[in-house]
Each structure stands twice: as structure tokens, then as C-alpha cells.
């Protein structure tokens, strides 16, 4: 069952098209990574899912209910951590957590206390004096202490230190074991790679890539370092070869995964002395899609 189903959603702010015909679905029990550069439309997509923004065209369903009309009902089963956590400045962290939980009719429990310990938060301080990371902890604790089935987390680790980041990832995997569904928007590719089952990449309001991490790796390029007996003078012209650099007889280049077979045949005919390959990382994928120069090259 799709927990989140976004169908051809377009969102206009005046003349500006913030989201352009976006479709994606998140299945029950998976951790879905949502990545993209600043201003690409990640938060706008998420805010539309929450019924805070009304789609100009298209439809969003959460738990098979309309995200705009049935927002209140849907939110009984959902927990959200905003990218920019803003809290009432003169409430303490502890008060805020209790208050946020009460907005979902949840009584403060031992779970909450355990989370406060785990995230090492001082709940007696006023929100005014919290750093970004501490405000994020407040929102994370309030979300994780709820009994939601779906967690929507918008760049939740941007202000956390590495120790807390690890705590966060542990909790994500625990939730996954419990069968919860998680939408994680992030800049940290290592994090997405570590925990996500599937990802979607958004750029300038459009989804430009989506699929499982495995599928993504197929789409991407691997980095090869090769030394051959016969010189490879014509390598830069081979199909699927990018960014090739030569030092004496050693070539370093990027190769489209789909051309791996043909290139390997050609290479072995020249007599391979050394071959190193680095698996494609999301990092490369990210850079390839986000670098405006490279991206426009691609389209030509």
C-alpha cells in the first residue's frame, strides 16, 4: 500500500512554478530519501503533503485520504519535523514537547523521558536560548515520542552533532523494524545511503530521478583507473567515457554503467595491466544532477 501518493502536483506562487508536475509514492514500511539542492522544492513538496499548502493542480493522498481536505484526520497517524524548527521563545523545551504531544492527544510518557535522555536535551531551558540543534532535538523528541505510522522529516539532522546524528540514525532503523514509514529529506548523502531504500531527486521543482538505490547506481557512473600495455590514445572518444585524465599510461575516467561491457572488451584487447574501480556513490549522482553546467551538457 502506498502511504504517500503524490500525483502530478503543480504548485504556483503567483507566476512562480515552485513544483512542476511532481509524482511520487512512498510505500508502507520503507525509508524514502528525498534529496535536492536548496530551493529545489523539497520543503514545498512536504508542506503540500501536510496540507499547509494547497496544490494548484494535482492530488496528494496520505493513507488514501486527501492531504488538503482531511489534513486533521491524517495527522493523527503522522509526525513531522520541520527543516527550520521555530518554537515559542518563552516556553521551555520540556513544556514545548508536552504541548506538541498534547496536540495529538498524547499524554507524556516514559518514552518521552527516555528520548530526552538519549538526545541529551536540557528541557528546563527556554526555547529562546536553544541553538538550532537543540530546537531540532525538541521537534525530534516530540515526533518520536508520538505513536505515528508515518514520519516526515525535513532535513532533521542539519543542526545535530555527529554523536546525535548517530542516535538519530539508530532510531530511524528501530522505527523501520517496527514497520513505520519514513520520508527523509536530506542533504547528507551518506545518511541517505545508509538508511534509505528508495530515493527521489528533485531539482528546480521537478523530480528528475527516482528509484531504489540499486537502480540509481545503474544510472550513474563509476570511476575507473586503468593501466594498459598498448597506449589508449583514443579513449576520450569512446562511448560512455567522461572526464578522462591521463598520466603516462594510466587513465582515470568516469564510465556510464550501461557501457561497462563494451568498454571492458575494448580495454582487455589492449592488455590490462591494472584496473581499479570505485563503486558509484550518490555523491557523484548528486553532483552530476545538480551542477548546472554538467546538467545542461547532458541535455544537449
Amino acid at each position: 500500500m502506498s502511504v504517500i501518493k503524490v500525483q502530478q502536483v503543480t504548485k504556483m506562487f503567483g507566476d512562480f512554478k515552485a513544483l512542476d508536475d511532481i509524482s511520487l509514492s512512498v510505500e508502507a514500511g520503507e525509508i524514502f530519501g528525498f534529496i535536492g539542492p536548496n530551493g529545489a522544492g523539497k520543503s514545498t513538496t512536504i508542506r503540500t503533503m501536510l496540507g499547509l499548502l494547497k496544490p494548484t493542480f494535482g492530488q496528494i493522498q496520505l493513507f488514501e485520504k486527501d492531504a488538503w481536505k482531511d489534513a486533521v484526520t491524517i495527522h493523527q497517524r503522522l509526525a513531522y519535523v520541520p527543516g527550520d524548527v521555530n518554537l515559542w521563545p518563552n516556553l521551555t523545551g520540556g513544556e514545548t514537547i508536552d504541548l506538541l504531544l498534547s496536540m495529538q492527544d498524547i499524554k507524556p510518557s516514559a518514552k518521552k523521558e527516555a528520548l530526552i535522555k538519549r538526545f541529551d536535551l536540557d528541557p528546563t531551558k527556554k526555547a529562546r536560548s536553544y541553538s538550532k540543534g537543540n530546537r531540532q532535538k525538541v521537534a525530534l523528541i516530540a515526533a518520536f515520542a508520538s505513536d505515528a505510522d508515518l514520519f516526515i522529516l525535513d532535513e532533521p539532522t542539519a543542526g545535530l552533532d555527529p554523536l546525535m546524528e548517530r542516535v538519530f540514525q539508530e532510531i530511524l532503523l528501530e522505527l523501520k523494524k517496527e514497520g513505520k514509514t519514513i520520508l527523509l529529506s536530506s542533504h547528507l548523502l551518506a545518511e541517505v545511503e545508509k538508511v534509505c531504500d528508495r530515493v527521489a531527486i528533485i531539482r528546480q521543482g521537478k523530480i528528475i530521478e527516482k528509484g531504489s538505490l540499486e537502480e540509481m547506481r545503474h544510472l550513474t557512473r563509476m570511476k575507473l583507473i586503468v593501466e594498459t600495455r598498448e597506449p589508449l590514445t583514443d579513449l576520450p572518444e569512446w562511448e560512455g567515457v567522461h572526464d578522462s585524465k591521463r598520466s603516462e599510461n594510466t587513465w582515470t575516467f568516469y564510465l556510464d554503467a550501461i557501457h561497462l561491457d563494451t568498454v571492458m572488451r575494448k580495454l582487455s584487447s589492449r592488455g590490462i595491466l591494472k584496473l581499479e574501480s570505485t563503486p558509484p556513490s550518490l555523491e557523484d549522482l548528486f553532483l552530476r544532477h545538480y551542477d548546472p553546467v554538467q546538467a545542461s551538457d547532458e541535455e544537449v
Partner: protein
Amino acid sequence: MKRSFKGTKLAMTVLVRQHRVQAVVWLVSLVGASAAAAAAFEGLSQTGIELLGIAAVMQNPAMVAMLGPAYPVERYTLAAQFANEMLLFTAIAAAVMNILLVSSFTRHDEEEGRLELIRSLPVGRFAYLAAGSLIVTLIDVLLAVMTGLSLGFLGLDGMDWNSSLLYGALIASTGWLFGALTAVLSQIFETTRGVTIGSFAVMLFFYLIRSIGDVLNETLSYFSPLGWTVRANVFDQNHWQPVFILVGIALLLFCLAFFWNRNRDLCAGLLSDRKGKRQASSFLLSPLGLTLRLEKGSLLAWGTGTILMAASFGAVMNELETYLTETTFIQAFLGGEGEQMTSQFIELLFAILSVFTAVPAVMVLLKLKKEEKRGYLDNVYSRTVSRSRQLSIRLFVAWMASNLIQLLMVLSYWGTAQSLMEQPISFSKTVSAGLAYLPAIWVLIGLTALLVGAMPKGTVLVWAYIGFVFADVYLGELLKFPEWVRSFSAFYFVPAAYSDTLSWLPLIVLTVAAFLLAGLGDVGYRKRDILPD
């Protein structure tokens, strides 16, 4: 020392860029209000005897408490009447401008973290405070010159260049003093709200001791800057000394602000926060809990201010009584109309105080937009809270607060008047005269709900509307505003309940209008995007 001020110019550019619209709107409205009022006074073409009548009314202690000492009847020119009616309230408006501008130039930018960014640049410690102080000074100089010039050109009977410029200087220097006071309080309080509430409280305090001093004991008035403002006797004796004193004290206050600024950390105040609770109380978790917790400070501050003002006006009622029975001149002039003078004063006073009652209620609703812009509402609407619920909670708090403040205001007025007067004013008439304003106050609340719900970009219009309502209440009758203009003010329809029998129809119509406005606001609010800045 010089290095401490390095970058002042840069900081000024930043501040001007951020606040230029706000500053221009304030300047234009303040200068415009003085010029328009003066022009309207000129068009009154009163006969000498009418002017004499007004002069006599101004002598009565209640009016003295409200507006400051009256001008001598024998030298009561049109210009004197203008100063009598306009000077104190315009000076207070200038003070409000100064308080709001200075608090946003100083503590607000610090609280929001913008100052941190500036201070990380090669910019001196004092640059930002110096820039804010300079800009507000510049605005006040412009205010003085522009007001002075526009009055000088209009030249009512009794105005010359010297006195017109003095009038402008009085308004601006009074405002500037409160700007300086705000700069000091910005060093003491950690939040913008603390700074503005503190500054307004001090202003109210000075207004009240001037009121009491002007009626009972002049020495007391000399402890209030507002007392000096009205003692310049502009358009009659034209004393410039009060301007120099105001400017001198303001300079001292600015020095104090710099001195305290030097020795504190960024974002810290001289009064700082205590540790708070680990857990939310059941009060905070109750439906109205959060809103009441967030708003109690400003509701209490405004409510107390309004009630205190009512009480002190009640306290001068016996002076009015004595005045009416003792002054044979007045009795001859008014005939048996002493009673009417009392009722007119009560109705005017309640109209003005009702505007003050409406202000905190309107602010409770405007906070809903502020919370949205700051992103607090993302926490709320991503949970099982509907928009209608949140709006209706705010509406309910605003409505209850206005009812309570208005009731206490009327009771405190009646209570002090009752305890001091020989022939007390009627309880039932006083209460119905005060409560008759409630439906009109609800219209202001409804209008705010409509703007917040359906037209969030235009919420500032509610302040423009309240400004208009106040101007109509205060001057509409005197300056003979055309009927159709006056009919835009909700307060215009409030029946005179003290002098007349109460007519219910307008009250019902106003109530229905208030509900309609709020309902439309709710419809709009459910349909629109929730967007933080």
C-alpha cells in the same frame, strides 16, 4: 573609541533599507495629521463667542486631565484651540513612533540574530546602536521641520513662524525623548516585547502623573516630560525651554544606553531569564492554555493601562463638579447645561478608552499571522489541530479580553468618580454607556480576523482603520467630518447611552457585522496556504 563606531554608516544603510517604508509612512501620517487638522480648524470659521465657549469647556478639569492645561480665555485664538486639542496626542503619537522604531532598530534585530551577522563584520561595538540613534534623530528632525513648516504656511489665526516651529519641535523632542528611553530599555530587557511594553508603561505613567498634576498640583506635572510639553504654551507665550529640557534629557538617556551597551554581551540583557519548568502544566495543555500563556503579558499590560486611565479620569470628576458649581461665568455661559457637559465628557472619554480596549484584542488576532510568519504554526497545523479551531480560540480570547477590560474600565471609572463626587453619576447609565461600545470593538476584532484569514498581506490596514476611528472619535464632531466619511467608522454608530435612552438596533447591527467579518475570515483562513517567511 573611534573604532567602536566604525561601520556606523554601513549599519545605517542596513537599517534604512529595512525600515524605510515604515519610517516614511509614520512621517507622512504624523505631519499629514497635523497639517490636515490645522487646515480643518481653519475651515471652521467660528464666531468669537463660539471660540469663547470652547475655551471655557477646555478650562474644565476633566478636559485639563485629558489634554493638559487650558489656554487663558481672554487670549484664546484658533491656534490656541488647535494646540489645546492636538499637541499632547500628536506628541504621544510621535512617542509611539519613536518607541516602535527604536525597539526594532535595536533589540528586535538583536533578538532575531541579524545583529550577530553585522557584528561579525569589521564593525565597531557601538555602530548599530549609533546608527539606530542617528536615524531616529534624523526622522525626528524631519518631523519637527516638516510639521513646523506646514503649520507656518497654513498660518491659522495666532500662528507665526516662531510658534509653528516651536510646535513641531515640541512634538519631535517629546517623541525623541521616548526614543532615547527605548534605547535604554533595549539594554535592559532581552526581548522586543519587554522593551516595547516597558516603554509604553513608562509613557502611560508619565501621562497619568501629568493628568493628576495638571488638575491637582502643578509640581507633580514637572516630573513628567509630557507635563513640560504642554507647558511650552505654544501659540501664546511660546516658551522654548521645554524643548531644550526634553532634548537634554534625551541626550543623557542615549549616553546611558551606550554606557550599558558597552558592558553587556550580545543578546544578553541586564535582566535575564530564569530556568523554566521541565514539564507543561495542565493549564498550558488545556485548549485556551497556550494562547493565554502567550498573550497574558500584553493583555495584562494594556488592560491595566486602560483601567488606570479610566480610574484617574474618574478621580477628576469631582473637580469637574466643583468647577461647574463654582464658576459663575461658566454657569452663565452654559445655562443649565452643566449636566450635558458631564455626559458629553463621559461619552468622549469612553469612546477614546474603547479604542484602547480594542488594541490588545486586535493584537491577539494579529499574533496568529505573526506566529505563521515565524513558523510556529507549522508545529500546530502538522498535528491534529484544525485552522478553524486555532482561529476560534484566538477570537474567543480576544473577545473575552475586550469584554473584561471594557467592563473593568467602566467600573473603575465609576468607582473612583463615585467615591469622590458629592452628587454621584448614575451607575446604570455609566455602565451602559461604556458597554455600548462593545459591539463596535467586536467589529474591529472581526475585521482583524477577516484580514488575517483572507488577506494576510493587508493586516496593517487594521491599524490604519483604528487610526481613522480614533481621529473620528476625537475630532469628527469638532471638525465636522462629512457624514459619509464618519459612517466608515464602526464607533460612529454607537448610540449615546449616557445622555439618551439606549437604542438597541445599532448594537445588534454592529454585532451581526462583527460575526460576519469573523466568519468570512474563517472561510478565507481555511482556504489559504500557511506560509512562513
